[in-house]
Every structure is written in structure tokens, then in C-alpha cells.
């Protein structure tokens, strides 16, 4: 599609968001003239707009209650045509702390976020919060509008300093594309036309930037999915209908009904204007299948690479219910058109939206964003949210009131390859033969613990000792893999999950190659370590907890990270900004304050005993 660009507009209270949106609408002639006239004649308390001029903030006013309070408490949608003809849908999200869920709603469908920063007030807690929510909801392209430059004399130095600061913050939270534009919404500088007040700015106007913006390739990708909304019955016709997501669906494609194992072929694809050879993602279609397959609303038709069935998965949820989260509570789980019963446990962590850091949590209240585990009675078919916003999301609904209590994003779906049409090729030389050649038993030692606990030091010492003993080894060190394999990942919880997943998969390959693999990785979350463990046979995986008190780690601080975290320049630092969940059933617990030699002796015996 791409003809409709959806943005979320966010900013702290009084950053001038309403005025900026009002001006964008007015200057693109998207506001009825009688509304403009009203905005010229009406004034509300505290307005600084001179009489006779248009108060642009009034153009985006909505409900009566909001007009009285002079604030925006719900998401409003505005429309304008960009130069070039694309449609812009602006989801105008409320700026207050207590309406975080509304901002998440606005961000959930956005391609791009426009974030306002007040040039006079600079970066505020709200700035962190808006960025954190946007990135959590999968908006990784950010346009920062540094507003009110008129109030600082259009000073380039102020702009440059703020631009660098917000850019760094956005990138540290996981934003992939950050643009910064100087504007004055009230003065109309560089909103839709270049301004003589900003001679030093040689970039585009805000409108120009939006008009020229094209979405990049989304991270990850999934195959074709057709969540079945309705089964259409006609004269000798019976066909499931829904909107294609993931990848295009073609006539003649082999598909299956997820979970049924039944494969069939697409005989006919019917789009809004008749038969199609190929339906692109986003197209509403009806299909005719070559076999008479039992199919109903809630089923999922997929290409051969369908999502795995899962009955348990980790997720980030935005809590929207007025009732607080109840650990172990029973909810209705809505996955697209599918409704099943689910039990939700946790929360394992709470995103501090003021700072973008994840900390410990006891419960979740309205507007909180936290991590949970969802367990279902019957399997559901989900992609990870990073791979697909369409099939990696779900809603939790209160069984009695039917209120939506949470919106969720799948972080670690349980991976099972048996239903994905992936047929592993058998090779004659297998792990056992490689182990025999090396004269060793392969194993994975997974060292988890706080930064500074001594994982790398111990890994290095064990590696050297084993090497000296003639054992073929390899060390996967967290910081080292982040320089290459995992260079694209940050430290937000979902990135940490992916970091752990990739390291675990690499360790599994090395294990298959017959090596003794030593992993040194903070891996702070229990659920993610458990997911890693699932890749291995029980005897192959040894979880080693390097247990060093936080105070000692902070004292050591070999990489100076705690100092940075405490100074506020490093977010998501385990132990400071994020929780470390200690293992409950590690095979080995090492006292991190004891000598390295003791640790080496212990771990070497674990490896050599298996020979």
C-alpha cells in the first residue's frame, strides 16, 4: 500500500502539539473555513494568541470535557493530503503521564512518530516516556520537532544541542531512524514553509520531511497469513474471507490451516474488484480452496512458513483495564479473530516510562507497560511482534465486563519447527562422530550474572585450562557478540530476548560441532534463559549462576557501566534500570566473591566428568 502514512504525534503538556497540528492542517487547507473563523474569534483562558489571529490549537479541540479542562485526554484522528498526494493520518495522542495507554494506541498503527521537544524547556521526563512507548509499540522511525525556537531567539546552538541529546536518547532506546527539524508552531516557522528566521537550517520543513518519508524494510518478516474473519457462502461457493498480512498470497499457493496439519491449494483469490492472481498484504480477499476444508472464523490460513503453535509465550503488555492485573488471572485472549481462554502470570518487569528503563514489578495498573507470561489451554499461532505487527499482537479481555484490559506484543513465542514446513536435512557426519574425533563430550556452560560479577574472567580462565587439557572450546561473550552478530540489538527487554535467543542458537550449532561452549552473558530474565535451555537436551546445558552481590559489582565496575548508569547516561543497565532475575534452579552456583581458581576447578570438573 504505502499511499497512507500514519503518524503518532506526541509531546509533553504545553510543548505546543495542538498548535503544531492545527497549523499543519490549516496550512495544507485541510480545515473547513468556518472552523478557522471560529478559531480566530474564540479564545480560551490562558491563550496568548493575539485577538484577530487564528488560535491553531483550537482546531484540534474535541470533546466538551476536554475543552473545559483545556487538555487532550483521548486519541483524535486528523487527516491531510501531503504534497504528492499521499494521505497523512495523524493520531493525536494525549501528553499526560496518566494517559500512557492512549499513546500506545496511537503508536500501535503508526509508521512514524513526530515527537515535540520544547526548545526552552529541553528534554523532559515526558520525552523519555514518549520515546519509550513508541519504540515499545514498534515505531522505530522518529521525527523530532524542536518547537518554540522563537522563544530562544532561533538560536542554532540551542537546536544543535537538543538535537544531539534527543537523537542519542532515541537511539539508546532502540529507534533506528531519527530526524530532527527546527520549528516554531506559533510563528509558523519551518512547519510547511522555510523560514527566514532559520537561515542556518538547510534541511526540509516538517511537512516536506513527512511528504518525502518512505518506510524502510521492517525488521524480520513472516510468510503469508490470512486470519479468517468470516466464511462467505454463496451459490455453490464457500470461502474464507480476511485481510492478507505478512507476504502476498497467490493463486496456486499451497496453504494450510494452522494447527490442523491440513494442506490445500488456493484455487481462486477474489479481491474487492474481482479475481486476482496475487493479493498484496493489506488486501481484503476471499479465497476458494481446492479441497473442502473445515474452516471457520478465528482460523489462520498460512503459507508453509506458518507461526509455531504455542501454549505459552512471553509478552510485553500495555495495561488498559481499570482493574489491576491479577497474577494467575484468567482472561479471554483475542488473537485477531480468534478467542481463547488464557492464564497470565507475572509481571516479570515494569517499564518505567519516565526513563525508558525496566524495573521490578508487583502488579500492573492502568497505563503500565510490563512483561508477562501467557498460557493458553489450546494452542494459538503467533509471530513475534518484532517480525509482524499484524500477527504478533493480542488483546486480553476481562471475562465478565468484556473490557479490554491489556494489549500485548509477543516477545518470545515458543519455537517449534514441526509445523513450519521446514524439513531438516540429515547429514551423515553427526555430533557423535565429531565428538569421537575430538575425544570429548560437547557441552554448553551458560554463565549468567550481573555485569561485573566475574563471568568473563571465569570464562577466560576455564577456557585456558580446558585448552591446556586438549579440549576444543569456544567462548561466546556477550559484549563480543554485540560487536558483530548482535550489532543491531539494543538493551530494551525485547532486544535482550533476541540477544539471548541468537546466542543460544549459535551455542547449539557449536555444540553440534562437538565443542565445549562457554557462554558469558548477563541474560537477566528467567524466561529468556528458560527459552535458551529449551534448545538443549538436559545433559548438554549447564546453567551457571555467577552470584556476586550488586554492591560488589558496582565497586568493581570494570567497564565503568555502573558509573554511567548512576549518572543517568546509560539506560536499561541490569541491576540499576532493569531487574536481574536470579536463577531458581541453576546447575551450578558460583560465589562470585570467592577466588577464580575455585570456580575454574568446579567448572572444569563439570566438563571433564562427562568425558
Amino acid at each position, binding site marked *: 500500500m504505502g*499511499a497512507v502514512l500514519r503518524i503518532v504525534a506526541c509531546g509533553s503538556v504545553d510543548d505546543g502539539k495542538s498548535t503544531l497540528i492545527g497549523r499543519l492542517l490549516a496550512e495544507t487547507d485541510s480545515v473547513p473555513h468556518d472552523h478557522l473563523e471560529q478559531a480566530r474569534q474564540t479564545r480560551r483562558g490562558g491563550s496568548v494568541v493575539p485577538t484577530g489571529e487564528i488560535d491553531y490549537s483550537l482546531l484540534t479541540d474535541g470533546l*466538551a470535557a476536554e475543552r473545559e479542562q483545556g487538555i487532550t485526554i483521548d486519541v483524535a484522528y486528523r487527516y491531510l493530503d501531503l504534497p504528492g498526494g499521499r494521505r497523512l493520518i495523524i493520531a493525536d495522542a494525549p501528553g499526560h503521564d496518566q494517559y500512557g495507554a492512549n499513546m500506545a494506541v496511537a503508536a500501535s498503527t503508526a509508521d512514524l512518530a513526530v515527537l515535540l521537544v520544547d526548545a526552552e524547556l529541553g528534554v523532559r521526563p515526558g520525552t523519555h516516556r514518549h520515546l519509550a512507548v513508541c519504540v515499545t509499540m514498534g515505531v522505530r522511525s522518529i521525527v523530532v520537532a524542536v518547537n518554540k525556537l522563537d522563544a530562544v531567539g532561533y538560536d542554532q546552538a540551542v537546536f544543535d544541542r537538543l538535537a544531539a541529546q534527543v537523537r542519542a536518547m532515541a537511539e539508546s532506546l532502540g529507534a533506528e531512524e531519527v530526524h530532527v527539524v527546527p520549528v516554531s508552531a506559533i510563528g509558523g516557522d519551518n512547519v510547511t514553509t522555510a523560514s527566514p528566521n532559520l537561515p542556518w537550517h538547510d534541511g526540509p520543513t516538517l511537512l516536506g520531511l513527512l511528504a518525502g518519508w518512505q518506510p524502510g524494510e521492517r525488521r524480520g518478516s513472516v510468510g503469508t497469513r490470512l486470519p479468517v474473519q468470516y466464511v462467505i457462502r*454463496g451459490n455453490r461457493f464457500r470461502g474464507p474471507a480476511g*485481510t492478507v498480512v505478512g507476504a502476498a498470497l497467490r493463486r496456486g499457493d499451497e496453504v494450510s490451516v494452522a494447527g490442523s496439519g491440513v494442506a490445500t491449494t488456493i484455487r481462486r483469490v477474489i479481491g474487492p474488484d474481482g479475481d486476482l492472481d496475487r493479493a498484496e498484504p493489506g488486501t481484503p480477499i476471499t479465497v476458494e480452496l481446492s479441497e473442502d476444508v473445515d474452516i471457520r472464523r478465528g482460523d489462520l490460513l498460512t503459507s508453509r512458513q506458518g507461526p509455531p503453535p504455542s501454549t505459552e509465550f512471553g509478552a510485553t503488555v500495555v495495561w488498559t483495564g481499570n482493574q489491576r492485573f491479577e497474577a494467575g488471572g484468567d482472561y479471554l485472549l483475542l488473537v485477531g479473530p480468534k478467542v481463547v481462554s488464557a492464564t497470565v502470570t507475572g509481571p516479570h518487569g515494569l517499564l518505567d516510562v519516565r526513563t525508558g528503563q525496566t524495573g521490578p514489578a508487583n502488579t500492573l495498573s492502568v497505563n503500565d507497560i510490563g512483561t508477562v507470561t501467557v498460557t493458553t489451554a489450546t494452542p494459538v499461532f503467533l509471530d513475534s511482534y518484532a517480525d509482524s505487527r499484524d500477527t504478533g499482537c493480542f488483546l486480553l479481555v476481562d471475562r465478565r465486563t468484556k473490557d*479490554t484490559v491489556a494489549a500485548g506484543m509477543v516477545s518470545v513465542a515458543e519455537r517449534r519447527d514441526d509445523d513450519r514446513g521446514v524439513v531438516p536435512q540429515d547429514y551423515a557426519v553427526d555430533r557423535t562422530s565429531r565428538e569421537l574425533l575430538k575425544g570429548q563430550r560437547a557441552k554448553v556452560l551458560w554463565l549468567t550474572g550481573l555485569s561485573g560479577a566475574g563471568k568473563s574472567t571465569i570464562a577466560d580462565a576455564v577456557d585456558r585450562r580446558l585448552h591446556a587439557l586438549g579440549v576444543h572450546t569456544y567462548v561466546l561473550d556477550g559484549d563480543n557478540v554485540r560487536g558483530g552478530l548482535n550489532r543491531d540489538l539494543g538493551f530494551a527487554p525485547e532486544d535482550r530476548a533476541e540477544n539471548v535467543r541468537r546466542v543460544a542458537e549459535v551455542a547449539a550449532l557449536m555444540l553440534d560441532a562437538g565443542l565445549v561452549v562457554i557462554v558469558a552473558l548477563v541474560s537477566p530474565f528467567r524466561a529468556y534463559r528458560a527459552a535458551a535451555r529449551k534448545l538443549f537436551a538436559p545433559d548438554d546445558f549447564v546453567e551457571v549462576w555467577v552470584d556476586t552481590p550488586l554492591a560488589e559489582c558496582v565497586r568493581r565496575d570494570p567497564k565503568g557501566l555502573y558509573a554511567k548508569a548512576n549518572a543517568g547516561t546509560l539506560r536499561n543497565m541490569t541491576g540499576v534500570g532493569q531487574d536481574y532475575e536470579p536463577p531458581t534452579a541453576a546447575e551450578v552456583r558460583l560465589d562470585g566473591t570467592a577466588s577464580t581458581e575455585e570456580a575454574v576447578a568446579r567448572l572444569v570438573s563439570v566438563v571433564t566428568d562427562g568425558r
Partner: protein
Amino acid sequence: MDITSTGTEAAVLDTLEAEAIHVLREAAGAFRKPVLLYSIGKDSSVLLHLAIKAFRPGRLPFPVLHVDTRWKFREMIEFRDATARQLGLDLLVRTNTDADAAGVTPFTHGTHEYTRLMKTVTLRRALDEGGFDAAIGGARRDEERSRAKERIFSVREPGHHWDPRRQRPEFWRWTNTELADGQSVRVFPLSNWTELDVWRYIRREEIPVVPLYLAAPRPVVERDGVLLMLDDDRFPLRPGEEPMDRWVRFRTLGCYPLTAAVESKAVTLDELIDETRADRRSERAGRLIDGDGGSSLETKKSEGYF
């Protein structure tokens, strides 16, 4: 001259069409007994067209309901009946006959009370009697500022009461379609369409509309600064009012004594679209019922008006 590049315009309409069809299929699939509210206007015509597309090659899986106040333009009623015949619609027409018999008219009861009795009350009764749990309508967010925050699936409490605090958050393209006892829902597949989108889509898809949208010489009087059409002999003239023939058309269609005409020579859709682009007055400026109070439409909505 329509300056928007044709390819992009078509792609914008395709996206809006896709979203509307998705919403219509959700409504039909998730709710027990949906009904399509048909007001005979341009938005209803687009909605009906989309609904037929959404369920092809099957039939429209729900009935179509018109709340007839007995004060609609005559051409609207003719158009409605012809459309129902041609498309084979299961058309339900409901009127508040008690109020009609009691002599409630736009002239005697004031616009607010008239609208409440003839439209709001009738609609609520029709939905209750039919046991409909989902009413699909053609309202758009760009019609009026209080509608900018309306949900695509707008939940109504028992008694059809609209409570802004109980509205559900709408994440992604999937909505919570579960209803508690007594709750119902109003569904707006055209939420993200603008007035121009509607006309461009009508032009592209060649959707028939009531001829009143196009200019013709029609008998009108000027009253309180607006032109009102004398559609039949029930319109009581005030002393000094002189019917005259003017070239007029209507931007929205409702009850004829409450719907202002605009002077226009636009006799084709192309001319109408050009004029809509040039005339930047808000669409509902011609609806006399919205004008009684600063947040008048919002007040009506909380009472159960569409």
C-alpha cells in the same frame, strides 16, 4: 481541476476501501445480529456498496434499516425503494408513528426535541425490537470535531447510552468485539474517510446517489440566512416569504425542512468534486440540528443519536 495525482488518489481509496471491508467483515463475523443503518445519503450509499463488495460472491449477511421521520426529501424515499429493489435488500423501515400521529414536526417542536423523538427514539426502539447487537453506520471522523475521537467500534451501554469513559482502546487493526450483557456496538467502517474521499470513491465506483446532491433549479425560500427547499406542501410559509426557483444542491441530506441548500451549478460529479475542494465550509454547516449548542452533536450522541 483535480490536482492530486491519479495513481496516488486511487491507492488512497484502495487503502480506505480495504480498511472498511475489514471492519465490515469483523462486524458480520463477530456479532450475533448486525444491521446496516441506511440513511439514503452519500455515505450510506458508499457503505452499502462496500458491504456488497465485502461479502461477494455471497449475499449481504444483514438487513438494512432506515429510520424514516416522514420528513425526508421525496427523492430520497424514491431512491431508497429503487435501491432496495435493485439490490434485493432486506430493507426495514421504522417510523415513530406515535410521535407522528401526535403532530411532532420540525416546525412545532424545535429541532432538538424533534430529532430526539423522530430519530433517536425511533432508532433505539428499532434496534431493541430487532435484537440487533451491532449497528453499522456511515459516520466519518472528519464530519465534526467531536467525532475526531470516535472509535471505529463504539460501545453503547444498556439503553444505548454512550459513555466516553467506557470506550475501548483500538490497538492495531483488531478490535475487542466481545460484548457484556446489554451492551451493543455502533460500527463505523468509514471513520477514516473524508468528504472528498467519499465523492471520489462514488465517482470511481460509479455508485448511484440521490440526484439532490447535484445542482438543479429547485423551489426554495430564504429563511434565517439559509435556503430551504419546499419539497412538498407541508412547509408553512411565513408572512412575506416568497418561493423562488434557484440553482441549488445539497451537501448532506436529512429532513428537508432542516437541511440547507447551497447555491451551485455543479451538475456532474466532476464539477461537484471541484466545488467541494474549493468550498471549504464544513460539511455539517448545512445541518440545522447541529447548531443548537456548542457541543450539540456530542450531547445527541450521548443520548443515543447516531
